């Protein structure tokens, strides 16, 4: 009994130490990336390659997600609001929710799954096949060559994709509410425009930007510090996606309060 308790406590201690170590490592990697940005010239060709892989190739997934999230949310809001005769409030509700929460969170969760997984898998495979060591042996610093272009491409792509997701989500909310569910189109647009301000859009895009940083740094950290072997690449990739997704959801709570106070009064 006591031995089992000891084992449980030791395991909990190891996990806590591991989590604290990983958090420190992720913070140090972010600092290192920023230092490399200041110290080395940016490799624009690699940034452009990553922009294509992250930004262009993620469009379909992100747009599809945005479209269906907007459509489903509009339908659910309509079903509730119609009971109290508030159909005309469906438009602004969908619009503000898409801008502030649904757009950035769903878009970046999808990016964590698609792009974060790809980053972690590629870098961990490179590490396990000595390609990172070969890079170092050839006199190239891996953080500068591999992490910085991915980080920059994510900083640019994540807010743009978030913007696309929320535009498509709002448009699909309109398509569900007006032609299908019979909400008055003129009221829908008028109320949407009246109650959706630049601060809502600003909060959404800022969240996309911040979530982009989280995905890039966590995925690169996991990729640079993988578990050994082929199975290790799989586990590392899974961990990168899970940790990025959790970090997005937890940080979203704090970003909501911080960004709300930063954008306060900016209509």
């Amino acid at each position: 009994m006591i031995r089992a308790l000891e084992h449980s406590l030791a395991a909990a201690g190891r996990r806590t130490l591991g989590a604290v170590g990983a958090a420190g490592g992720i913070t140090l990697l972010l600092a290192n990336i920023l230092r490399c940005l200041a110290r080395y010239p940016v490799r624009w060709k690699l940034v452009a390659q990553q922009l294509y892989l992250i930004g262009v190739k993620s469009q379909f997934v992100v747009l599809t997600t945005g479209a269906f999230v907007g459509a489903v949310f509009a339908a659910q809001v309509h079903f509730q609001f119609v009971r109290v005769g508030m159909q005309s409030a469906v438009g602004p509700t969908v619009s503000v929710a898409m801008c502030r929460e649904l757009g950035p969170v769903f878009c970046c969760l999808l990016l964590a799954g698609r792009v974060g997984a790809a980053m972690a898998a590629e870098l961990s495979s490179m590490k396990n096949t000595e390609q990172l060591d070969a890079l170092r042996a050839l006199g190239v610093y891996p953080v500068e060559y591999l992490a910085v272009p991915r980080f920059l491409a994510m900083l640019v792509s994540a807010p743009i994709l978030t913007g696309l997701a929320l535009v498509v989500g709002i448009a699909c909310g309109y398509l569900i509410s007006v032609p299908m569910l019979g909400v008055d189109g003129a009221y829908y647009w008028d109320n949407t425009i009246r109650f959706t301000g630049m601060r809502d859009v600003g909060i959404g895009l800022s969240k996309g930007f911040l979530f982009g940083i989280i995905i890039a740094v966590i995925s690169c950290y996991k990729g640079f510090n993988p578990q050994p072997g082929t199975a290790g690449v799989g586990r590392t990739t899974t961990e990168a996606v899970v940790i990025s997704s959790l970090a997005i959801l937890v940080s979203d709570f704090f970003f909501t309060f911080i960004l709300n106070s930063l954008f306060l009064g900016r209509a």
Partner: protein
Amino acid sequence: MDAILEIRDLRKALNGHPVLRGVNLSVRAGENVVIIGRSGGGKSVLLRHITGLMQPDAGAVIFGGVNLSALGEEALNPYRRDIGMLFQNGALFDSLTVGENLAFPLRERGALGAREIAHRVREALDIVGLPGHHDQLPAELSGGMKKRVALARAIISRPALMLYDEPTTGLDPIVADSINKLIVRLGARLHMSNIVVTHDMVSACHIADRVCQLHEGKIYYTGTPAEIQTSADPVVQKFVKGISEPQDAIV
């Protein structure tokens, strides 16, 4: 002749287990040194210290008069460009073609134009006997071809010192022999010093001017290939003749 590389009392423990226990070695310009020793005996760890991929617990690696062990990761980079390394599995960048892999070190140096780089890439592929494979991806090559491409990438910037980590492991005897001949030929042609880590005595005798046996974390024996093969030392004989004893048995 002056030493291009000097290793002084190098010590390293991994997971609390001492792997290198005070290695001393010096390599002269143009010399071919082969380090032999049992699997897991620290040969690859020693090579990784020379190129700064690992930092020692104690001791020094002095290359061209500079103590590499005292330098940080990024400060090592200019010196690393004078040290070529062939990794055990080639470590080719699998997202780049053969030509791009070879051009990579030259582009990173930034001293040559695109035309000169293309010329050097063709020349390097000719040297390793792979002309016309410029546009292939590493995944499309056989094991021996990968090794030769990796060798071409390592020597394309004409380093002063080449490190080879088990260059013939996993290759058939004919390909292994061609790699051995290539190592000797390249060393002479490009005036490089070579350090080759292997447990293959055929390769060792083919390549070496001097053979060093790493045993229990130290350079235990040094001699010419002829000397090491005729040595009366029981530890040397055991390795050279591949004799196992009851305590070596794998249960």
